[in-house]
């Protein structure tokens, strides 16, 4: 393999990995105060991409305005999901895993509606304004500026999320609920408010992932499940709850996928990917940067 080819594949892998990481981080956001993995979040990413096509390409709205509408709409959808698919489990105080089915059901409903509305054709969504998909050559390196923007956006968002959790009262309250739900309640914190807030935020974050992923991956209704699985792998590899770990995990997955795409056939590609994930989890069950639970009460 030529150096140029290798570097191009790596760049592609990093950008792809950054998108996987965003899906994983979206899962983390919703998981933190709830201990619920929102399995519908892959479809939120898909909706971000498809509505991105609808608003930006079909309607022709400016990028910023279209994206804002999209984030709000999918954020609200996340909040709605929390009310109908997750909150009832908490209210019943049944610490079972009913959410596994109910969030999956919610995702199936979304994808079926989306299939009816959008049909299966892949659609083009424009890149972030000011960035482009044209390839730039820099010595042996080739990339496009949208790829750079995606990676920069993920890194910036992680700084933002970590700042929120560490330095705002609401963020600290979410950390408190994550650590000890009853303890938080005894301090006057209502976990149900934070649960809903986290689903709204997780939904909006996934929508953003969708709209910036679409120029690279093309928007299609089959995007959701694939990204949910990759996002989940990124999160598991990096460590649940660790945003930086999830980013590293995503990049590892993206690069393995990218490199193996020219060395291996499709079937072997998935095999190698899963083998790496399983191997890492075998050695570090809580992921590369995950912390073992501090205590169980």
């Amino acid at each position, binding site marked *: 393999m030529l150096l140029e080819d290798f570097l191009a594949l790596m760049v592609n892998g990093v950008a792809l990995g950054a998108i996987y990481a965003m899906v994983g981080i979206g899962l983390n956001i919703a998981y933190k105060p709830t201990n619920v993995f929102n399995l519908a979040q892959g479809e939120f990413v898909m909706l971000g991409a498809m509505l991105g096509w609808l608003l930006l390409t079909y309607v022709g709205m400016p990028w910023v305005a279209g994206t804002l509408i999209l984030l709000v709409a999918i954020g609200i959808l996340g909040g709605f999901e929390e009310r109908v698919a997750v909150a009832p489990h908490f209210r019943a105080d049944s610490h079972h895993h009913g959410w596994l089915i109910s969030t999956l059901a919610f995702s199936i409903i979304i994808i079926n509606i989306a299939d009816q509305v959008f049909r299966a054709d892949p659609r083009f969504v424009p890149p972030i304004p000011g960035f482009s998909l044209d390839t730039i050559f820099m010595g042996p390196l080739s990339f496009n500026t949208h790829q750079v923007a995606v990676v920069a956006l993920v890194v910036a968002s992680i700084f933002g999320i970590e700042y929120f959790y560490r330095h705002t*009262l609401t963020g600290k309250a979410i950390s408190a609920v994550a650590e*000890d739900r009853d303890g938080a*309640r*005894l*301090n*006057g*914190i*209502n976990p149900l408010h934070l649960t809903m807030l986290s689903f709204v935020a997780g939904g909006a974050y996934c929508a953003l992932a969708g709209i910036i992923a679409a120029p690279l991956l093309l928007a299609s209704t089959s995007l959701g499940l694939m990204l949910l699985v990759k996002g989940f792998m990124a999160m598991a590899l990096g460590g649940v709850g660790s945003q930086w770990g999830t980013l590293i995990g995503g990049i590892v997955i993206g690069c393995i996928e990218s490199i193996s795409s020219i060395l291996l056939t499709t079937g072997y590609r998935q095999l190698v990917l899963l083998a790496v994930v399983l191997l890492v989890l075998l050695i570090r069950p809580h992921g590369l940067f995950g912390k073992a639970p501090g205590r169980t009460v």
Partner: protein
Amino acid sequence: MSRPDAILDIRDLTAGYNAVPVIRGISLCVGKGEAVALLGANGAGKSTLLRAVSGLLRATEGAVLLSGETITNLAPEKLVRKGLSHVAEGRRIFRRLSVADNLELGLARMGLSSAETARRFEEQYALFPILHEKRKDPAGALSGGQQQMLAIAQALIRRPTVLMLDEPSTGLAPILIEEVFDKMAQIRAQGVSILLVEQVVERALEFVDHAYLIQGGRLIADGPATELKDSSAIRKAYMGDVSIA
């Protein structure tokens, strides 16, 4: 059983898990500025009673009144604003957050001005100087005794009228247990009513005015601490119904 001066008035409370009652028909009173102990063997239902009072557990029968107002089955997050603080067993602080963050969360939903917030912090730092010294450290890095102080400070920063403490001395060295009781005496001197669940029975009886004994989820005796100290009821509560010649 209920008295006119009661701040916390628990009447015939029954509560448990999955409809199986753990405590049955317990009545208990804490007067203003009074310290009351709730004693009994492991599994007698002491913690269950506190959890039912603070709303973490649903009471199926009976009533709880705080300063005359019915608070039965009110959600715990609402209850703290009414002046009841519950320090749960096992030093339930937020280990990953700093000491100051833990105190801040104690005031999270009180809606205080920043000046008032600062005053409340000062109060707690005056009572627990070690917390001021370690305010930037993660709470999980504190020693057991310091964590207990933080858990108490977190409850106290809301200036509750009633403070419920669930086994604050568990797992602490004797000298630290003494320190915890010392702090509780200072808190009581400020007019806060205390309902204390303790395993260190003798020390608890020295501290409180009145004590209640429960066994198998039922109240078996109560009386002034000085009288209970020498009674056979205590032995009965802890050892079961054995007659000692």
